[in-house]
């Protein structure tokens, strides 16, 4: 049984999507528990895989028993095992937190909605665990198409935002597909390990280099690297709350995982970082992304829109760190995939709870929130500290590696951009704290005559939020273990 875990990881959400959508016709009350059970099961499997990998090393699973390079393999190694756990944990927490939203927004279509939710996850999990470059494209599209639908189900501007996202997403995925074509021309194979084994002989191949550029360009569009970020803020901030909490933490991070996977284990670091010009140019784009994302975030007057621009800046962190091409940079980028998923989840859960109670997330409506929703705000504060990068929250540690990488590489612009973004994040969040803490202003000598009355979001929202917030601190405290026991083993030799 345990040796089928890699396949079960995809099959469980996939099959349960079908069952849940059928259940939507039979008895709608069963849909939600079923989805929770399926995700819990998948989470348990991913934890099992993680312990297995940590105990015995990477696992390669041959789909349907076909051997590579003909068959499709699924590979669980030190790099993706922790990310799988994070993806499924994020999805489960968000599903529980979104219970009331789903019942309110999609009461009629709950089966269909949850089926999409689970399909989206099988796509994400598949992207992370597949060992085949073309298979990655297919799963990418499964994840994306369901993602468009999850966003397009929202009200008001959501369908239009989703359509624009679809256009950009398709361009990105198509570029990736094109790049795979060039890889196939150069190597004649699509299996990741097989491609990697041929790279040393093709070190001078310009076809392969073109393939690298095209693949990366496609992924950059999909991960919303500045200046290709235009679709992201609208799509995420107009999405239904239940979907935003799923898609915002996962999509960009999984795309960054795909970038790391391609760069490290497909093209191999020797080839990926062999053209100094390319790496340097991408780092500069990342610097621009960090600065532009931070500045654009400053201009927003809605909480969720502000967060989307912070995501744009965070994408810059990871892309820049990875393309610095040294050990600290790759470590930092990989660690930040995990941390940023957790941070973004916490923030979006908080926003979803706030929107649930207030019906809005505009800054001016947040007055007195510390009094009204102390637990939600506690989670929000912890997440904010993590985004700013205050120890011992996890955000500090990944930023630490990223800045160290910048110093080691002598790339001072990147170091400066990271520090700038930390300070900007501090301004961004303290602006909100000030509104929520001080306003409405106390009269006289600090006596609230009628202070804000306690009115917290439902428990199903608050508990996942607090769990996510605590995980930010736990991830921070254990980041030493995550790095030494997983990420450093995932980094192949040959990185300075």
């Amino acid at each position, binding site marked *: 049984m345990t040796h089928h875990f890699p396949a079960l990881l995809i099959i469980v959400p996939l099959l349960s999507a079908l069952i849940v959508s059928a259940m939507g016709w039979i008895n709608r009350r069963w849909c939600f528990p079923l989805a929770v059970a399926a995700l819990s099961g998948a989470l348990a499997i991913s934890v099992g895989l993680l312990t297995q990998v940590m105990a015995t090393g990477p696992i390669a699973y041959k789909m349907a028993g076909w051997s590579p390079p003909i068959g499709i393999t699924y590979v669980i190694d030190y790099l993706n095992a922790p990310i799988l756990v994070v993806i499924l944990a994020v999805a489960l927490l968000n599903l529980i937190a979104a219970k009331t939203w789903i019942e309110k927004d999609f009461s009629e279509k709950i089966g269909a909605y949850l089926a999409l939710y689970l399909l989206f996850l099988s796509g994400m999990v598949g992207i992370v665990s597949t060992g085949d470059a073309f298979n990655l494209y297919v799963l990418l599209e499964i994840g994306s198409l369901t993602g468009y639908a999850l966003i397009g189900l929202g009200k008001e501007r959501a369908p239009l935002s989703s359509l624009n996202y679809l256009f950009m997403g398709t361009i990105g995925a198509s570029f990736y597909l094109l790049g795979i074509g060039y890889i196939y021309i150069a190597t004649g194979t699509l299996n990741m390990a097989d491609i990697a084994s041929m790279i040393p002989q093709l070190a001078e191949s310009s076809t392969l280099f073109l393939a690298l550029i095209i693949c990366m360009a496609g992924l950059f569009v999909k991960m919303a690297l500045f200046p290709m970020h235009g679709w992201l803020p609208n799509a995420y901030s107009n999405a239904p709350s239940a979907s935003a909490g799923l898609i915002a933490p996962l999509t960009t991070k999984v795309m960054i995982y795909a970038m790391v996977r391609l760069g490290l284990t497909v093209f191999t670091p020797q080839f990926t970082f062999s053209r100094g010009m390319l790496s340097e140019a991408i780092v500069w784009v990342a610097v621009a992304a960090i600065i532009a994302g931070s500045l654009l975030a400053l201009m927003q007057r809605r909480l969720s829109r502000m967060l989307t621009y912070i995501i744009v800046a965070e994408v810059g962190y990871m892309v820049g760190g990875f393309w610095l091409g040294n050990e600290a940079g790759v470590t930092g980028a990989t660690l930040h995939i995990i941390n940023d998923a957790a941070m973004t989840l916490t923030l979006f859960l908080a926003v979803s709870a706030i929107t649930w109670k207030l019906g809005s997330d505009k800054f001016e409506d947040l007055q007195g929130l510390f009094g009204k929703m102390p637990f939600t705000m506690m989670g929000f504060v912890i997440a904010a*500290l993590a985004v*700013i*990068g*205050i*120890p*011992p929250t996890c955000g500090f*540690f990944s930023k*630490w590696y990223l*800045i*160290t990488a910048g*110093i*080691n590489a002598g790339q001072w612009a990147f*170091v400066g951009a990271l*520090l700038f973004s*930390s*300070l900007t994040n*501090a301004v961004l969040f*303290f602006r909100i704290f*000030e509104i929520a*803490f*001080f306003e409405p*202003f*106390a009269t006289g*000598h*600090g*006596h*609230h005559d009628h*202070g804000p009355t306690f009115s917290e979001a439902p428990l199903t929202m608050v508990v996942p939020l607090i769990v996510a917030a605590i995980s930010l601190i736990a991830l*921070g*405290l*254990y*980041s*030493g*273990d995550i*790095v*030494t026991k997983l990420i450093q083993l995932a980094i192949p030799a040959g990185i300075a």
Partner: protein
Amino acid sequence: MELLYSIKPLAAILVSFFVVPIIFSSKSENVREAWTFLAALLKFAIVLSMLPFVLKGGQIAYSLVEVLPGVAIAFKVDAFGMLFALVSSSLWIVTSMYSIGYMRSLKEHGQTRYYACFALSLSATLGVAFAGNLFTLYLFYEMLSFATYPLVTHHQDKEARSSGRKYLTYILGASIGLVLPAMLIIYTQTGTFEFAPQGFMNGAFSKEATTVLLLMFVFGFAKAGLMPFHSWLPAAMVAPTPVSALLHAVAVVKVGVFCVARVITSVFGTKMLATMGLGTIVCYVASFTIIVSSFIALSQDGLKRRLAFSTIGQLAYIILGIALLSPSGMTGGMLHIAMHAFGKITLFFCAGAIFAASGIKNISEMVGIGRRMPFTMTAFLLGSLSVIGLPPLGGFISKWHLVIGTIESGQIFFLFVLLASSLLNAAYFLPISYKAFFCTDEEAMFEKKVDEVPTWCLVPLCITATCSVIFFFYPQPFLQLAKMTVATIIGAPMP
């Protein structure tokens, strides 16, 4: 040197941390205050229980988790950390007492949040005191910044908001903008953060780079209030007085100087700084702050603002003492952490007591107040004498060592700085006491009726004032701890 592994340092830190949820969940005032007291006493007891071992020359270590390669969240209790922990944990008890009187008599709102954040701040303070490496130090330094923010902005009005903004801008801006990069640069070169008696830089940097790094730390720990990073301190005086007293005369600002002292002694190493001649640069920066802040203090009419500027000057004394790099100078600087804490907290308590009893904040309105509040104003006189550095008060002991230190290091210029500033201190403190007691009946603004503050407020300030006197005659264990620290640094046998 004896090294003992024990969970005690962590326990001392966490005592007040665990009491936070209890404070939040307790409904009645009495329960909340009882828990605060209990935590304070327990914390002090744990700190005290470690004292005999440290006095014997031992160190107590505890390591939590390794968060970065070669860097763990680790605690180490040495003589210097012990000195600071003793000061802050003992004064928390007194301040808790004072808080109860003050907050109740003014019927402040949000007392639950107040006590919870106070407990959290104390956790962070002890964390800084017991930090075993630079990373742990930074972690608790930042934690303190955030824990004190709700205290500074307690009144939640417009003034509090702008002060809070200033507070965080300075503190956080400096720590993220200066300390963090400096730490990163050091880490990339040395790969360690572990404090060592002679520093761990081991000549990894050129003289120019070392100078820049040193200044990044000295200014980056903006809680130390060196000019031009001082103006958050007067702004933070909008906080309720117990907060100003403990945090802005003891915990927060002393954490700043403690960090600077730690970095100078245990990261850079005094020998290296002496050979490079870098201590003198810091001395000049500190001297500038001492003189300028004293002049500004002269011109302030708000009592708490005057005290704030006095604090800025006194903090610079400590940094000056450490940066002199001579044994007596360092002893004096470290001792001044304790002596100034007891003196200044008395002064703040008095300022709060005056405000709670009469609603007066400005010095010009205090003529004759000594007739109405004789105990408070006597304590105020004692506190100010200690801060000025006159016998028979504790402040004299530390200042004496500082003066010896300047002579020892042969830098007579700083001797004059110290003397001049003592005169200035006298010039801005003594008139307050003078006007309070000696004035003609026409000038007096108060009737001759004794109308003291509640006992809960009065007792603490009498205790701290008495302590200031006692420390002149018996400056132990602080003097012993300071001397032990210096002995470790210069490698001399234990005194």
